[in-house]
Structure formats: C-alpha cells, structure tokens
C-alpha cells in the first residue's frame, strides 16, 4: 500500500450536526490512524450512528469537516466516498432482499469501485468472501431469508467487497453469544492484518477490550474521553454515562 504506518486515515474537525432544531453532535474532533482498530462507545442516543452517517456521506454536518487521508470529503456524495475506500456495514442490516447472498456480494464487487467491471466476472471473488464469513452455504439463498446473525455477516461481506481501506462497522456483534463474538474478534484481526483500518461502534462493549487499540467515548453527542481501553473503561464519566445501561458484554 505504501502508506506510512502512522499516517492519519480519517480526521473529523469540529463536526456539528443538527436534526430538526436538536443538536445531535456537538463539536466532535477525532483522528484515526492507518491500520488502527478504534471503537466508539457510548449509551443509546449518544450520536454514534449519526457519526457514521456523516463519515460515509449520508448526512451533511451543519459545521465542520471530514478529512480522509487529508482530502476534504465532507460534501462528497456517498457513492464517491465508497469509491474512495470507505465501506459501511449498517446496524440494521440493509440487504437487497430480492437478491441472493451471492448476488448481494457480487453487486458490491461490481459497483464498489468506479470501473468495477462486468458483473458476471465477480462470482469467484464473491464466493471467496462468503467463505471467509462462513456464508458459503447460504450463497444461493435470498437475502431476506437469512437469520439475523447471517445478515450481519452479509453486511460485512458486502462492505468488504467494495475493497475499502477504512471499514465502518455498526454494532456488528450486538446481541450475540460469546463464541460468535470470539469468531468476530479473529475476523477483525484478519482484516487488520490485510491492511484495513477499522472503526467500530460497540454499544455493548463486547469487542472493545479484546480487539481495539483505542476507545472513543461519546455521550449526548459530545466526546467525553478517548484513549486506551482500560483507562477509558475505568473513567468515572464513562461509567456514569452507562449507569443503568448494560456495562458487561451481553451474556445469553
């Protein structure tokens, strides 16, 4: 890839977002380095998904800039941001229900990059990706017939198929058992080894300590703290923000 190990991949400067007169994100500043795994944590309503929406271009901030490898992408349309190398897996999966899992992934391969090429040639690569995410059995099943866990994996597969450099994963393991979570930990480390930078939203703190280099904690739309997992998780402000919320990893 050629980029230095500590080059800044993504930077958010003074991001502010209004939604119908309500301030949803207040003055967010953060920077993500190349090949890092960073988790964004915080209770419900903290503005985490909104942050992702800003990064991938679905919402425009009322103030502030988004810089991707130094380039200002704040006003770019979502498809252009995707082509530049930012992939997104949604919290509530949005598969193309009428297509099969294989077709969904082939689609992402085909359109994820500007000269994606012929649709029919993407089959082998799509199968390989499905295999990585243990969806090979479901390749020919219509996406709307997949289970919740499989849908999340399909989301990730699709996002990966766009060949991103930065991958945004929104609550990818929310509600899953410890075994599944461990599988995902392994997967995420594989992605990082392949050169990806990962930005994860992890409300339930399931993945956080096991895989993240850094944590960023949000509450009521503002960043309260960031740093090493241990120090952030023992920060009294973070703890009180989560009081009444689930603090431990979700157990079945």
């Amino acid at each position, binding site marked *: 890839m050629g980029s230095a190990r500590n080059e800044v991949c993504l930077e958010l400067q003074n991001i502010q977002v209004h939604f119908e007169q309500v301030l949803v994100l207040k003055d967010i500043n953060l920077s993500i380095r190349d090949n890092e795994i960073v988790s964004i944590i915080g209770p419900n309503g903290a503005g985490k998904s909104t942050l992702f929406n800003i990064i991938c271009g679905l919402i425009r901030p009322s103030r502030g800039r988004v810089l991707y490898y130094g380039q200002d992408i704040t006003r770019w*349309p979502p498809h252009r941001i995707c*082509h530049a190398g930012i992939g997104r897996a949604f919290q509530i999966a949005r598969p*193309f229900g*009428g297509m099969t899992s294989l077709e969904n992934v082939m689609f992402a391969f085909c*359109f994820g990059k500007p000269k994606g090429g*012929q649709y029919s040639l993407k089959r082998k690569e799509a199968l390989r990706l499905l295999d990585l995410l243990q969806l090979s059995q479901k390749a020919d099943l219509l996406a709307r017939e997949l289970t919740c866990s499989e849908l999340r994996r399909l989301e990730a597969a699709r996002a990966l198929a766009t060949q991103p450099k930065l991958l945004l994963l929104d609550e990818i393991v929310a509600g899953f058992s410890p075994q599944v979570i461990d599988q995902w930990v392994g997967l995420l480390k594989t992605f990082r080894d392949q050169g990806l930078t990962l930005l994860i939203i992890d409300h339930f703190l399931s993945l956080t300590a096991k895989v993240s280099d850094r944590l960023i904690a949000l509450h009521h739309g503002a960043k309260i703290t960031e740093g090493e997992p241990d120090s952030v998780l023992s920060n009294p402000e973070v703890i009180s923000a989560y009081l009444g919320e689930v603090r431990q990893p979700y157990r079945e």
Partner: protein
Amino acid sequence: MRISKPGLSSFLVLVVASVFIAWPVFSTGSGIYYRVLSLACLYGALALSWNILALTGSISLGHAAFFGLGAYGSALACQYWHWSPYVTIFLGGIIGCLYGLVWHLTFRKLRGAAFALATLASVEIPKVTIDNWDRVTSGSLGLIGIEGLPPVRLWSLTLDVDRNLQVQCFFLVLFALSVLYIHVKAISSRWGWAIRAVREDETAASTLGVDVLRIRLQALMASAFLTGLGGAIYAHLMGSVEPALVFGLHFSALPLVLSIFGGRYLALGPFLGALILYPADQLIFHSWLPAGHAALYGLVMVITILFFPHGIGEWVQQETKSV
C-alpha cells in the same frame, strides 16, 4: 423478486409475441386488425417507457406530460418549420426529455406518494399553457391536418407508412421492439442491476458505490424521451391533436395499467400487458360500451393491485413453476 430467468412461461410469451409480430409480415388480414396491432405496439412502447422509470421505484402519474409535449413539439415543428416528420419525431422526444430534466431538478427529493402527486400536477403546466397559447397552437381546438409519416424508399420498394396499414404496423412493431431492447437493458445489464439496487434500497445502494441521482436521472430521461417519441408518432398517425386528449389522464394511466397488469419486473411484462389489454379493449369492450369502454383499464388496475400485485406475467410464472 427474482429477475426472470428463461423458463416455460417466458418461452410461451416469446411464442405469442412472435406470432403477433410475424403476423403483419405474412398475413393479408383486414385493415382493422393491423390498426389495432399497431396501436397495441404503440401503447406497449409507452408502457415499456413508463416502466423504465418505475423500475427505479418512482411511480409516475404524469407521463402524459411527455406524451403531449412530444406530440405538440413534433406537430408544431412540422407545421412551422416544414421539417420531415421523421426528424420532428426525434425533436418531440427531445422536448419530452427536457421536461424530464425539469422533473429531476424540481422533484429529485421526492419519493413515493409525494412524487406521484407532483408528477400528476405537472401535467397541467404544459397543458394549460398550450391550451391558452391560441396564436401558436390553436388552443383548445387543437391542431389538425398534421402531416402523416412520409413514404420510405428502400431499394426498389416504396413503403407508404402512412397509408399502407400493413407497413404502418410493421413500423410500429419495430418501434416497440426498439423500446423493448432498452427496457431489457434496464433490467438485465450492469445498468439494470444499479436500477434494481436503487429501487430496493437507495441508502444501501449509495454506500455501495451507486450514484443514485445519476441512475434516477438516466432512467427518467430515457423514459421521458421514449414517451415523447411515442407521442410524436401518435400525432402523425392520427393527424390531429388537442390538449385535452394528449395531456389527458388516459395517457398517464394506460402505461401504468398495462405495466402493472403485465408484470413490472419482467422484461416483456409491460409489452405483454399492452398486447393483451388493448386488443381486448378495442375489439371486445368497445362494442359493448362505445362510450366508457376505457373503464376496463380502471377495473383491471383495481383487480390487479388487489389480487395480482406483481402482474399476471409474474403470476403465470409462479403457476407454471409449480407445474
């Protein structure tokens, strides 16, 4: 919704369609059947054109705007500039296309019912303008004496498109087939996949690299151009137009009914709808109810939405699949 793959029902459809298409070439039937088939093909083309936009998820209730603009554009250019109808027909298409661009610029944030309503209302603008612009367009009286399509010379053959109903039929079949080709591309090609993704989930499509605005614009302009073309051809075929007719609800509703009836997600669906319903209307219903026979389409629309939401084309496919 699976894209139609070759199967028994598609084969049947192909057989039926081939019979319809080959017929004008080989038979020597009476004039009225040619006329009916010609117009069925024209309506089929209109339905296919409408569906190209509908495939992106935008249901339009205002395609009569493109139809009427195409008709008037071509007729007026013919009358005032004395260009050949074959040229003005394309001009009609372009004018339709330009109004489609206007739609895109004003309606691009609208979806669903809001979009449908806005398109419905948008027909009034060209309609009332033309209706009142007496000096140029003869207002509500309409234009008469529009030049018919001139004869085409092919080697030693002179094809009188205007007067020879058989040749006319062939011409319209060709037109329908051209539009069908574009419709097929809008379903099964790279472009077609993008269109489908936009229809299923715009947000997901955009984060996967699909330029949603561009796709919608392309589909809209193609749809508007082809509908305008159809309107222009209609004007030259009929010889006269008036605002209440060419901007009427009939030409907004018919493509919708035919497409929904025939199957919106099938390559041949809208065309099939036209080939079945239009002859049924003209040859059967018209004799029962000389006035108000178009009630058939209203009835079909209601029944289809309630009982066959994916059109009978799809229904036939389902039924033959279980066989």
